[in-house]
C-alpha cells in the first residue's frame, strides 16, 4: 500500500486517538467493576483503628488492590496535601480542614462527603491520681491536663467545649480560665493525647469517644461531656482530583460510605450521619 505521507500521518493520529479513547473507556468500565492498584489514604489520627479495619476489608473485597494509610493530625495532613503530598484520599476530622484542601484545588468540594460523627469525652488514668469525679474537677488546682493543640480538630473541639461551659452559670468564665491554666501540654494529634493518659503521665485529657474504644488495655476511665456542651465532630472524606488512580480512590470513598464501611465505623465507636 502506498500512502501519501500526509494521509499516513493523519491516519496514525486517528489510530492513536482511538487507542487512547478505548483505554480511557476501558478504564471507566474497570472502575465500575474491579478497581486495581495502590492508593494512599491520608486520614485523621482518630480514624487509625477503624480505617485500618476498613482497609483490610476493602483489600479482601478487591484482591488486586493495596491501600496504604498515613495517619496524623488532620491539620498536618491538610498541610502536607497543600505542599503536594501524594495522597489519593483525604479523610479529615473536621470540615474546616477539608475546606482548606478544597481551596488548594486538589479536592473538588462536590466530591466531599460526611461519613462519620464523633464527640469528645474526658479521659483519665484508671488509677485516677487527681481523684476526678465530674467535669468541675478539671478546674481543681494542680490537676494536670493534656489537650490536642488548637489547630488539631480535637483541640479545636475541646476549646469549643470550654467556651460553651464558660457561658453556663454552673461552670462560668473562671472554670475556663482554671482549666486552661491546668493544661501542661498541647499535642500534635488526638492519639498522642490519649497515649499520655494511658501512660498515666497526666491527670486527664480530652479525646474522642471512639478513641476510648480503641484502648484494648482498658487503662482509662471517662467523664461524659453532656450534649449541650459537646460539639459533634463531623468527618468528611474525598478523593484527590489529581490522584493517579481515581478509580480506586473513588472506590475506597464509596466503600467507606457503603453500609459495610459504615458498620465498621460504628463498631469502632463512631456515630453515623
Amino acid at each position, binding site marked *: 500500500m502506498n500512502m501519501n505521507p500526509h494521509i499516513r500521518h493523519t491516519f496514525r493520529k486517528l489510530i492513536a486517538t482511538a487507542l487512547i479513547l478505548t483505554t480511557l473507556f476501558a478504564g471507566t468500565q474497570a472502575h465500575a467493576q474491579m478497581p486495581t492498584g495502590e492508593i494512599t489514604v491520608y486520614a485523621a489520627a482518630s480514624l487509625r483503628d477503624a480505617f485500618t479495619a476498613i482497609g483490610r476489608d476493602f483489600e479482601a473485597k478487591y484482591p488486586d488492590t493495596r491501600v496504604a494509610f498515613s495517619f496524623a*493530625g488532620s*491539620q*498536618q495532613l491538610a*498541610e502536607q496535601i497543600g505542599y503536594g503530598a501524594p495522597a489519593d484520599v483525604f479523610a479529615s476530622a473536621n470540615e474546616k480542614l477539608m475546606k482548606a484542601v478544597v481551596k488548594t484545588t486538589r479536592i473538588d468540594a462536590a466530591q466531599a462527603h460526611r461519613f462519620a460523627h464523633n464527640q469528645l469525652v474526658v479521659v483519665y488514668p484508671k488509677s485516677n*491520681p487527681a481523684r476526678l469525679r465530674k467535669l468541675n474537677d478539671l478546674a481543681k488546682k494542680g490537676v*494536670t491536663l*493534656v489537650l490536642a*493543640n*488548637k*489547630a488539631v480538630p480535637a483541640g479545636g473541639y475541646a476549646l469549643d467545649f470550654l467556651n460553651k461551659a464558660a457561658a453556663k452559670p454552673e461552670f462560668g468564665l473562671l472554670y475556663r480560665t482554671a482549666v486552661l491554666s491546668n*493544661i*501542661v*501540654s*498541647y*499535642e*500534635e494529634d488526638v492519639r498522642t493525647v490519649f497515649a*499520655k493518659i494511658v*501512660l*498515666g*503521665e*497526666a491527670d486527664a485529657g480530652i479525646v474522642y469517644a471512639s478513641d476510648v474504644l480503641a484502648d484494648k488495655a482498658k487503662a482509662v476511665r471517662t467523664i461524659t461531656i453532656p450534649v449541650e456542651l459537646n460539639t459533634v465532630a463531623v468527618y468528611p472524606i474525598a478523593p484527590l482530583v489529581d490522584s493517579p488512580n481515581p478509580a480506586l480512590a473513588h472506590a475506597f470513598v464509596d466503600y467507606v460510605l457503603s453500609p459495610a464501611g459504615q458498620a465498621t465505623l460504628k463498631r469502632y465507636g463512631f456515630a453515623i450521619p
Partner: protein
Amino acid sequence: MPRAPSLPHALPLVAAAALLSLIVLPLAAIAVRGAPEFAAAVGAAEVRSAVALTAWTSAIALLVILLIGTPTAWLVARHRSRGWRIIDALLDLPVVLPPSVAGLGLLMAFGRTGLIGPVLNTLGIPLAFSTAAVIIAQVFVAAPLYVRAAIVGFRSVDRDLERVAMVEGAGAWQIFRFITLPLALPALMAGAVTAWARSLGEFGATILFAGNLVGRTQTMALAIYTSFQSDLPAALALTLLLLLASLTVLVTARLLRTADASS
C-alpha cells in the same frame, strides 16, 4: 609544590558540588522564603517565648554538661581497661539513638509512671511536662558531643608534663587546674560549642518527654513544628533564627579548633 593533575579532580568536584547544594539549597530557600515576613513574625509572643526558653534551657543544659561531662571525660581519658572502654562506648549511645527512642526512654525512666519517676514525684520533683524535662532531654542528646571532644582533648595532653609537676610536688587538683585543663581547653571549648548547638535544636526527645506548652516546654524546634501547621511565617522566622545561631556556633567551634592547631 607539584600541581595535582586536573582531570582526576573533575569527578570529586561534581560530587562535592552535589553534596554542598543539598546542604545549601534548603538553607537558601529558608532565607529567601522567611526573610520578607521575618521582622513581623519575630515580634509574635509565641516566637519570643520560644527563643527565650530555648536560650536559657540550653544554657543550663550546657552548664550541666560541663559540670558532669568534664570529670567523666577525664576519667575515660585516663583509663584504658575494658570496663572503661565499654563506658566510653555507652557515652556515645545517645548520638546514634533516634530521638524518638531517647524520648520514650526518658519518659519510661523519669515519667510519672516511669522507673524512678514515682520516687521523684513523692520527693516533690515532678518532671513530666516541666521545663526540667526539656533540660534533661537536651543534656541527654548533647552531652556525648562534649564528652567525646573532651576525651580527645585530655588524651592529647602530654602525660610527662603532669608527671614532672607531680615530682615537683603539685597536688592532683593543681595538676588538673594548671596543666591538664589549660592544655585541653581548646578541645573542651570546641566540644562545648558543638554540644550547645545540638541542644539548641533538640526536638524529638523533648516533644515526647517534655510535651509542648508555650513558655514552659515549647522550645524553638517544637514551635517550628507546631506553627508549621498554622502559621508558616512564624515557623520560617524561627527556622532562620535557629539556622543563624547554629551557623555562628559551628563557625566559632571551627575557629577555636584552628586556633588550637596553630598554637
